[in-house]
């Protein structure tokens, strides 16, 4: 009973937030709707006993990534509604519609077609221990069985950081302009 109530309320928040993201004209309101969605998902994680994922969801997504979105929105002052009547890329809308329909069809196929349709039963049948907190289990598995994937992800992130720094630096032969100096 409680589980159903928690699911319904948080799913409603997730959906309302998701609709808010695409329906808001003001980009800051859209970013805030995204935060609501992320919180709803965090609550759903807690309802499934995945407390660590919930905490990471709030700390990383709500606490860092969306804050960076908002930071950029504020810094660049793009807090006005966009003019939606012009296509920045020709044929963008048509391609977006095709991608959306295709994605929905794939999702439905994954749910209902094939030999093993989704049933809602737990996919993982390994014992989820009552005595060991799931964060300990998660840590152990991450640093033993999946350590290679973990390290590759770490390298990927490092490459992304180096790439971002390289892109944002100005070239050697390009002296600083007055405007850039004033910003310091």
């Amino acid at each position, binding site marked *: 009973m409680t589980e159903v109530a928690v699911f319904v309320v948080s799913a409603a928040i997730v959906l309302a937030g998701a609709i808010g993201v695409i329906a808001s004209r*003001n980009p*800051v*309101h859209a970013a*805030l709707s995204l*935060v609501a969605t992320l919180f709803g998902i965090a609550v759903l994680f807690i309802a499934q006993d995945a*407390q*660590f994922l*919930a*905490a*990471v969801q*709030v*700390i990383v997504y*709500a*606490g*860092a990534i969306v*804050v*960076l979105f*908002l*930071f950029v929105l*504020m*810094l660049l002052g793009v*807090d006005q509604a966009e003019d939606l009547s012009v296509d920045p890329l020709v044929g963008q809308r048509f391609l977006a519609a095709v991608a959306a329909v295709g994605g929905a069809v794939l999702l439905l196929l994954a749910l209902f077609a094939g030999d093993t349709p989704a049933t809602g039963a737990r996919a993982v049948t390994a014992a989820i221990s009552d005595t060991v*907190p*799931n*964060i300990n289990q998660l840590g152990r598995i991450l640093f033993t069985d999946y350590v290679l994937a973990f390290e590759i992800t770490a390298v990927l992130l490092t490459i992304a950081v180096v790439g971002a720094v390289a892109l944002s630096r100005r070239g050697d032969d390009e*002296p*600083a*302009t007055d405007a850039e*100096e004033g910003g*310091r």
Partner: protein
Amino acid sequence: MDPLFNDGVDLAIVLIVVFKVVLTFAFLMVAVMFMVWFERKLISDMQNRIGPNRAGPWGLLQTLADGIKLFFKEDSKPDQADLTVFKLAPYLSLVPAFLTFAIVPVAGNFMDGGDGTIELFGHTTYAQLADPPIGILLALAMSSVAVYGVMLAGWSSGSKYPLLGSVRASAQMVSYEAALGLSVATIVLLAGSLSTHTIVSEQTNYQWNLWAAGFVPFVLFLIAATAELNRPPFDLVEAEQELVGGFHTEYSSIRFALFFLAEFMNTVTMSAIIVTLFFGGPAGPILVGPEWLWPPIWFFTKLGVFLFVFVWFRATLPRFRYDQLMDLGWKLLIPLALGWLLLIGAFRIARDQDWNLALVLAIAVVVLLVAASLLNGAIAAARRRREETETEAFS
């Protein structure tokens, strides 16, 4: 997990939890009231003036008087404000400040193998509102949510100074969160658990993390926490000489009071977190009288020391410049916290594997020194390069 929930949940247990919630709420409100008075009085002393002395004995009721006054003031709404967000922002500041205190153990005997439980209406329970498995991560999550209050308040005011304040705030709080998280990671490594109750019980009999982790994480945490709280010397967010009132310039009446409340409540909560992480929480000698009496006394004494320290910072340290703030955070605190985490990790492994501790220490010191000099070299090279391009631009 809290032993309160061992035998399922019935009405009595729900009532006990509600009782704890009300108690925590009341404590925080009263604590904020006295913290405001304490800060004003202490700063007056340090600045050789008298401070509030009209309302009640020694001006103790000054905060109450100010609160009542703020309630009845006109609530002005700027024309350019985004009203929905403008009204939402104060609550986004206040709620995380309340929630963080839920994980702080305030009482219970942790000394000499005590398990830190108390008896409440015939039930055994922990002396904290909640002991979730994610424990201290809740504090980090709440401090990342608290950014929104400050940030949105500044943006939604539709005015230049608040916007500048909130842009500064978001960059500052996100930067220092990394240092804060890394110094907490050291403590989690030592305790082997995220739960605040376990972190406190691992520090029993004066094995305080303050020395077990070797002082550095504590200093890092204190600096990063001050920056996270936007308190002086890191109060660039408000910086009244440059930004009027910073992010809350356009706020008045009770909405302003809510920001004020959140700020002081965060100070109390952060001091409580410092006591929990580094100073053994409520642990201390049981001198005379009943066993349950002393832990809260020790807890509030330690809490008081840190409240004093935060006021002391404010009275004595000049404000950082923005570039100094970013240099300190990214080039000093984060590398140091990361290095110290690796050092503590190396010692843990050395102890488990029975390696020669002196040798491990020597290797660790050499590796960290090499890393530090590489980092220094990189920073120096970047500075040299920047100065070169600047001279070119001016010539």
